[in-house]
């Protein structure tokens, strides 16, 4: 591993992210915060939702922002850079194994997802207050879950970005990302699916379930949630799977 090249690539991604910071902020926060405003403020304020929904919603919104940011941050540049212009070639020709180019993308995506997660909490809290009951009693566990969620989003971005052609980006969002969000227990806890037993089992193949439930377990443990053991097994398993698939697809794209 050539750490100098690796750090230089991270610096390159930071430079590009800094250059596009305004677009990046809108892309990361606009949709989740609009959702927070409508469901947490308007629906609760008008009595259609119970006040406790505010606290239940926040971890899901955090998972949503992190996963959306990580996938977008890794998949979209990769899809573009592997296409016609093959912009990624200068990095593939850097003196290190090409797997590290992919891993650098994952690290950059993880950092962006973590930043999104950390920033969305106070933003959403400000929008929702008063009545948000967060309890950070286990900060280390929360940090580990947040890190695994960010890593999952970046690994997912790698796997998707190296498997989807530019012409199929729309399809990727409607066939993969949108169902993942709606069946990802972001807006409701997993236990709420008890009346739909088949669906409750089926959604367990969705890694976002473990992300939302993991953040729920560490931020608002007063609500029902999946056990932390299930969360860790789910997130670690999906991270390993997506990273393996992503690296394999990356190699297939990078070397003909």
């Amino acid at each position, binding site marked *: 591993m*050539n750490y*100098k*090249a690796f750090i*230089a*690539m991270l*610096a*390159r991604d930071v*430079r*590009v992210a800094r*250059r596009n910071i305004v677009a990046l902020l809108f892309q990361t926060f606009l949709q989740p915060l609009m959702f927070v405003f409508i469901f947490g403020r308007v629906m609760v304020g008008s009595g259609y939702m119970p006040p406790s929904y505010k606290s239940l919603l926040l971890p899901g919104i955090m998972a949503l922002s992190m996963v959306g940011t990580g996938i977008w941050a890794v998949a979209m*540049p990769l899809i573009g850079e592997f296409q*016609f*212009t*093959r*912009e990624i*070639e*200068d*990095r*593939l*020709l*850097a*003196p*290190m*194994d*090409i797997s590290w180019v992919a891993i650098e993308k994952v690290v950059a995506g993880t950092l962006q997802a973590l930043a999104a997660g950390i920033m969305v909490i106070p933003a959403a809290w400000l929008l929702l207050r008063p009545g948000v009951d967060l309890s950070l009693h286990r900060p280390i566990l929360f940090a580990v879950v947040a890190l695994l969620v960010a890593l999952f989003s970046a690994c997912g971005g790698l796997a998707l970005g190296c498997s989807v052609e530019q012409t199929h980006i729309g399809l990727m969002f409607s066939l993969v990302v949108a169902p993942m969000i709606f069946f990802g227990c972001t807006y409701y806890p997993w236990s709420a699916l008890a009346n739909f037993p088949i669906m409750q089992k089926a959604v367990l193949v969705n890694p976002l379930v473990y992300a939302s439930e993991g953040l729920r377990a560490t931020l608002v443990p007063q609500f029902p949630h999946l056990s932390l053991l299930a969360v860790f097994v789910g997130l670690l398993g999906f991270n390993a799977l997506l990273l393996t698939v992503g690296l394999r697809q990356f190699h297939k794209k*990078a*070397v*003909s």
Partner: protein
Amino acid sequence: MAAGIRTSELRKVYNTAPPLAAGPGGAFSFAAKRSKGKQPKPEVVALDGISLDIHSGEIFCLLGPNGAGKSTTVGVLTTRVKPTAGRAWIGEHDVWKEQSAVKRLIGVVAQRPNLDFSLTAREILVFHGAYFGLGSHERNTRAASLLERFKLTDRADQIVRGFSGGMMQRLSIARAMMHDPQVLFLDEPSAGLDPQTRLLLWEIIREYNRSGKTVLLTTHNMEEADALCQRLAIVDHGRVIALGTPQELKASVPGGYLVRVRFGQHSPDLLERLKTLPGVREVRSTENNSADLYADRGGSLVSDVANLSVAAHAELCDVHISEPSLENLFLHHTGRSLRE
């Protein structure tokens, strides 16, 4: 320390669409490759046993038409294409087994500009230097000097997305030189360049070579190969069909001159008589009552050919004279023009 390039029986068969830069490659065949009763996958043989020994400090050229296998050869040598069989070395390093060491030694200019569109011209050079471990001061100085050398200083701090094709090509070459590689690969470097920039590029390549560096360039432009290269290999259908200095190769064409003639009607007897003309070394019958005469003279042969055609009652319809050139050599070996 300069490094040479060697390949041994390189073979590459694509069974998916080859990458853009590698071109469509050689012949399609629908043979083998049947899997689970599905439609057979088309196979493209891009390289069919290429063996080369390019000396360190040499400007070597791969000359051939589009799809001959030039870009695939460069792809293999630069770690971007995995060979189906055979081996390749840069210096003492096996290209496939010691990729990082090889990548340190090489600079690559791809056929299509593959610049980082999210960065400015200066940033592209500076980050490239950083990937290769150059210190901050060194990479900034080198970037400034290369931007100046390639006449890009006034656009140095602009995002490259809006650059013209020629500017992108110049920046691609500057980037390839940024880490001062021992071996420089240029895949069709002058495609799309105006004549003035092409001359600037040739001068830069010669200057780079004078510092002892090895240069491998691909082209389908014979003038470029003739003007720049110390040795060249003519490649067609993934095979090397001739190799040597431009002078040696041109001299290897029988006679050197090529006189292409077309008659009003086919006459085997006339072809036999053409062979007896003084200076004619070889006569090849081609399509449409035409013939290629390889001879050691050009214009002075025309009157003799005309006299013979009158005597044989075969009207002489067209004559084209080519002076000794690499184009003649390609035609002699393949029966096709490089431009076809």
